[in-house]
């Protein structure tokens, strides 16, 4: 087991390096870099002064070195847990992440919670009531959830609240430490909206898995020997149906870190997704690289945890 985990963790390194390399290369191909942007902000008197200023800015940001060296420098710093300073915000990327990550994690946790609360029971009920009215209604609900874009749902919610209830949801960020009520009444909207689409896919997965498992012989055996339906459902069927659902939840959490960009923007939640979009817009390389790395690390670690959870739920699965 320990060996297995060590092997998986070691395999993460090349994946993470590749992914950051992809993003690094892409950003370098992009027209315009921070040096020219900073220069545009300055009032420079003469052509010579401009050239000199540009050279100094580049040297200061390390942009004058060859590209492979720039990347290796960044990688070397990362190995020492230094992620560099933001070009525009004049502070370490680490501070920005520490400030924003908890907000997105809170939103993400709420999304996962809401999703689990409506989609998993929904999927079970849908499977048990196979092809009955409840099943049809839940299926229509879930396919609508998949079809309605979050951007639109978010707009409609704000529009409806403002137009018909004459009430604007407060779109100002409150720390949950200071004012939990204000915090929740703000992020509950993006959480509900995102969970409508994430829940849709979880519901479909739960439903199809349950349908498959309920047809298995061991379920029939358990029922035949006189066990109650609910007991069989929870103890026998659900346990086996849950594995692929869990994988999907894992994927969901990984994407959550910067994947909630759209809803964070609509509801003005200053989280990781927002930070990412702003950084891409202003070519703030250190932030982009840092956030991408963090995101990848999270995805890989969550995948590992999900795989390990497998053996907890299904003791037949053993990792060597």
């Amino acid at each position, binding site marked *: 087991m320990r060996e297995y985990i060590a092997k998986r963790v070691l395999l993460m390194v090349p994946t993470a390096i590749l992914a950051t390399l992809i993003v690094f290369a892409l*950003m370098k191909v*992009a027209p315009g870099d921070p040096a020219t942007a900073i220069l545009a902000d300055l009032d420079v008197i003469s052509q010579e002064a401009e050239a000199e200023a540009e050279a100094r800015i580049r040297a200061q940001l390390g942009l004058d070195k060859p590209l492979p060296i720039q990347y290796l420098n960044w990688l070397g710093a990362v190995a020492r847990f230094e992620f560099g300073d933001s070009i525009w915000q004049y502070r370490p990327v680490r501070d920005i992440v520490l400030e924003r990550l908890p907000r997105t994690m809170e939103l993400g946790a709420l999304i996962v919670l809401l999703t689990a609360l409506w989609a998993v029971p929904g999927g079970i009920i849908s499977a048990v009531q196979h092809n009955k009215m409840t099943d049809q209604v839940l299926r229509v609900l879930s396919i609508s959830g998949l*079809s*309605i874009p979050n951007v639109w749902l978010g*707009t409609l919610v704000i529009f409806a609240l403002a137009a018909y209830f004459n009430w604007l949801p407060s779109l100002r960020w409150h720390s949950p430490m200071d004012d939990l009520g204000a915090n929740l009444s703000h992020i509950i909207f993006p959480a509900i909206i995102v969970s409508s689409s994430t829940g849709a896919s979880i519901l479909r997965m739960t439903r*199809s898995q349950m349908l498959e498992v309920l047809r298995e012989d061991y379920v029939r055996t358990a029922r035949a020997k006189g066990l109650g339906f609910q007991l069989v459902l929870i103890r026998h069927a659900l346990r086996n149906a849950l594995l692929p659902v869990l994988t999907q939840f894992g994927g969901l959490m990984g994407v959550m870190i910067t994947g909630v*960009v*759209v809803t964070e923007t609509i509801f003005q939640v200053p989280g990781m997704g927002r930070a990412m979009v702003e950084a891409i817009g202003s070519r703030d390389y250190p932030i982009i690289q840092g956030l991408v790395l963090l995101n990848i690390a999270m995805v890989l670690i969550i995948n590992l945890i999900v795989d390990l959870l497998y053996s907890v739920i299904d003791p037949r699965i053993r990792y060597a």
Partner: protein
Amino acid sequence: MAMEGDAAAAGVAGELVLRRQPSTTTKLARWCRKNPVGVAGWVLIMILLAMAAFADIASTHEPNKLAGSINELPSSTHYLGTDLVGRDIFSRLLHGARVSLAVGFWAVFMGVTAGLLLGLVSAYAGGIFDLLVQRLVDANIAIPGIVLALVIVAVLGPSVTNVIIALAINYISTATRVTRSVVLREKARVYVEAARSLGASSTRIMFLHVLPNSISPYLVLVSVSIGSAIIGEASLSFLGAGVGADTASWGSMLSTAAARPYDVSWTLALAPGMAIALAVLGFNLFADSLRDTLDPRLRNR
């Protein structure tokens, strides 16, 4: 098929009587009866395609010119009113269908096709190449699609073609993985061995024998993904990395409403979003039925 029909008529030496294969039309009719939901999806898709096709004839105004005062409510001149700068929403909606559907289709088609070829070659070549491709796929999947698309549009600049490319990248990895697993399974089949023993080259086996047998998951992936690509276009537009604010697309229209929900007429908040939702619904319904028919194994993806 014709030969089998003849054989059935002749009775083949009186021993083997083959049943006539149902014609394609019969099969299609049977499929429609069994999949009313899929047909509903298909009808939705057709209606939206018609919108795109007849956009020039059906629009009442030039989509990109000022047609009246700003934020007008629906009237007989402006069926859906006007937007923030006074352009006719109905006409823009029709023309937007072209852009949005084209972006959705081409992004998915290019991405999934690239993934199909990559997965095929990767599974067939094996070794270092396979390992490298798999690591690349892992790396790609670990970066959230929307972030990668944002970066790519930042690199290439906002335009319809670039949005298509940015979205297409995200479909490559899934398609590569699915195709690779299908090909690995097919490779172990007897027909491949038979072809090889007859002296067929690897390339021939790969493209003439294995590829046709991997086509079902390909079709399923394409139909499943188009909806998400249409949503992707809307999300990119909203984040300022779309097809450009002046190009009428459902995404760019919706993002105007989403960015300034208090300043637009209710039709702009409703119409483009509804069009997107209906298009995605149509593709999802159709894809669901297609998947059940073509590839029951994929039902859980």
